[in-house]
């Protein structure tokens, strides 16, 4: 797959425009709405065919909500914004406000892999039923053909097809995650949203799943939207990275650029705080003061300003928009051009 292909806006597989997802806070006996959590507050990005875009950020930054809203995993549609998906026929459709019936044909093309390999498989269904469900409900296959397809999918994720009559409880975490991936691949999707797909796994198994996902992407020309909090994993798997903070994207750039030379102070802090498995890098962290704010009650202006060591008066009053400061490099910081920030340095050479 050619990762340097020219990027024509019309060729985007998915274009998210100003997506907003607010959850009402209801209180009291009458369940009156007393406020709302702006989980996703105006997120925009494009996703090119065949690439992997990662959404990273700390808990409560809205990355998972963004991912789930894109595949319309919630019962209610997003609060505002457009989710423009280019269908198999080349037609671009806004999925944001489609009803269940209109949405159904597009569900086949967009699938999702979940974080928890235990909760995401119905324990009362066999592997055949679980992986076969998308094939069945979308009228793709049934009966003997369904079984053949499921066997093929199992082989794809490197599980023996003989296991299809088994229940999820007979499998280890890694194997379950493979089953979850097989289910996501069943309908032959073009876009796969992987929501913290490897976070719950042990290190050794995590590597197996990451390898598998890489292989599958190459074989099936998949496009991944990879939601994660582990920056090392993100670095490993993605072509581009979008960093989120309290419902907004603060920086979006190619992976190597973003890691080598971040342009947003939050990205810098995140990179500096990644625990790195190398004792020689000890003490190289910039410990960021304060904590992620409550998305129901975020700070004014730039949400990051109370914790930002470069913050100035303007940051508290004026929210910086996400702007393109260099081709492909988007930052939401008033002072992106003037700051010199530290990236994820390589460790000193081994003596």
């Amino acid at each position, binding site marked *: 797959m050619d990762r340097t292909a020219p990027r024509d806006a019309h060729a985007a597989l998915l274009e998210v425009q100003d997506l907003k997802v607010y959850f009402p806070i209801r209180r009291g006996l009458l369940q009156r709405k007393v406020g709302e959590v702006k989980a996703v507050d105006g997120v925009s990005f494009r996703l090119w065919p065949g690439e992997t875009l990662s959404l990273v950020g700390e808990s409560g930054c809205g990355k998972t909500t963004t991912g789930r809203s894109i595949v319309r995993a919630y019962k209610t549609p997003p609060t505002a914004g457009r989710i423009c998906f280019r269908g198999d026929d080349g037609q671009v459709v806004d999925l944001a406000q489609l009803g269940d019936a209109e949405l159904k044909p597009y569900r086949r093309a967009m699938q999702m892999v979940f974080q928890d390999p235990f909760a995401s498989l119905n324990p009362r269904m066999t592997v055949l039923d679980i992986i076969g*469900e998308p094939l069945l409900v979308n009228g793709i296959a049934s009966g003997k053909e369904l079984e053949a397809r499921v066997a093929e999918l199992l082989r794809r994720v490197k599980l023996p097809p003989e296991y299809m*009559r088994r229940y999820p*409880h*007979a499998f280890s975490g890694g194997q379950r995650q493979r089953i979850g991936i097989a*289910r996501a691949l069943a*309908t032959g999707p073009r876009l796969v949203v992987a929501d913290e797909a490897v976070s719950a796994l042990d290190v050794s198994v995590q590597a197996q799943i990451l390898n598998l996902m890489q292989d599958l992407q190459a074989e099936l020309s998949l496009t991944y939207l990879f939601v994660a909090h582990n920056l090392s994993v993100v670095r490993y798997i993605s072509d581009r990275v979008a960093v989120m903070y309290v419902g907004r994207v603060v920086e979006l750039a190619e992976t190597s650029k973003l890691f080598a030379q971040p342009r947003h102070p939050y990205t810098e802090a995140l990179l500096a705080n990644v625990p790195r498995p190398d004792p020689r890098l000890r003490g190289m962290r910039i410990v960021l003061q304060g904590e992620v704010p409550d998305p129901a009650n975020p700070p004014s202006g730039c949400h990051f300003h109370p914790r930002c060591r470069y913050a100035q008066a303007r940051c508290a009053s004026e929210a910086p928009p996400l702007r393109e400061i260099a081709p492909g490099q988007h930052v939401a910081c008033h002072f992106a051009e003037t700051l010199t920030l530290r990236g994820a340095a390589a460790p000193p050479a081994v003596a």
Partner: protein
Amino acid sequence: MSASHLGTLPKHIQDELAALEREEASERAVATASQWRLMWWRFRKHSLAMVSLGVLATLFLVAIFAEFVAPYNPMAVHATRTYAPPQVIYLIEHGRLTWPFTYGLKSTVEVETMRRVYTLDYSQRIELGLFVRGEPYRLLGVIPTDLRLFGTRDGTQLISVLGSDRLGRDLFSRMVHATRISLSIGLAAVALSLVLGVTLGGISGYFGGRVDMLIQRLIEFIDAIPSLPLWMGLSAAIPLTWPPLWVYFAITLVLSLLGWTGMARVVRGRFLALREEDFVMAARVSGSSERRIIFRHMLPSFVSHIIASLTLTIPGRILGETSLSFLGLGLKEPIISYGVLLQDAQNVRTVATAPWLITPALVVMLIVIAYNFLGDGLRDAADPYA
């Protein structure tokens, strides 16, 4: 491991390494065990629940084949046997095991109290037998027969293993028939509660929001009202002129009107929990319709919990019927339930002269305990994945 390192290794080592990459799942029997099988395995470990299951199964058999099990017609009045005490069944005679027999009862009427006083008549040895001929009846309401499970050999003498009531009716036969009514009224009342509970709880849990709030308040309200006075009030309104079957259904209705709240709570709780489950979201993303999500994913996940909590509500209904009938506000003759039987034991003097009239209450306790143990076992087994 990159392939370049392995290229130089012998073929069999390469094969072995490849085999290592294939993850093997555990080969234990549980691998292909369905939810119900796992539940059964778990349930089996509860010895008390297993025993209770046996007890209830036996009682249900008795209820179904009541005419066969009961030696006599429960309505048959025997003027000479009013308040006759239970007759002991003997198995040993002259120090040797023998075919079960009993002795006859001699009765005299005490002049001042007008009570019958019974003594054993040792001259009258009554042989007992299994599958004896008795009064004809229709088995299961269809098959005409006169075979009874047990009775006296010659058929003219009477045996009342649990004594007789004030009209000389055989208490054991009456209890066998009462089992039918009391067990079935428990089931019937719970069945109605089930429909109400699942519907309202399902609506509440699935839709949430205001509807949920309203139903929740309703449930809280019903739970806060003491049930017995209200049951009493409602059953008192059942017209005395109604035929027995109507009364039976009216009482069932009264009992289930207040009893659905527990079920609704369970169903709602499960719905709320399941709504957030990843596998439900996965099904939605796969393109499953809401119908399929509810019936293929959510319902199977809590059917077992419903069964368990149903089992735990049945005893409450049975006790409710027993209490109402005991007070004279529930079922009435000619319907025989345990509560109706206990009406005879309403005052201390009767209990003092004929303590065996309390036995129906002991069976009620047995049923209630058995249901409780069974329900506990089911509840523990209900979620085999926990």
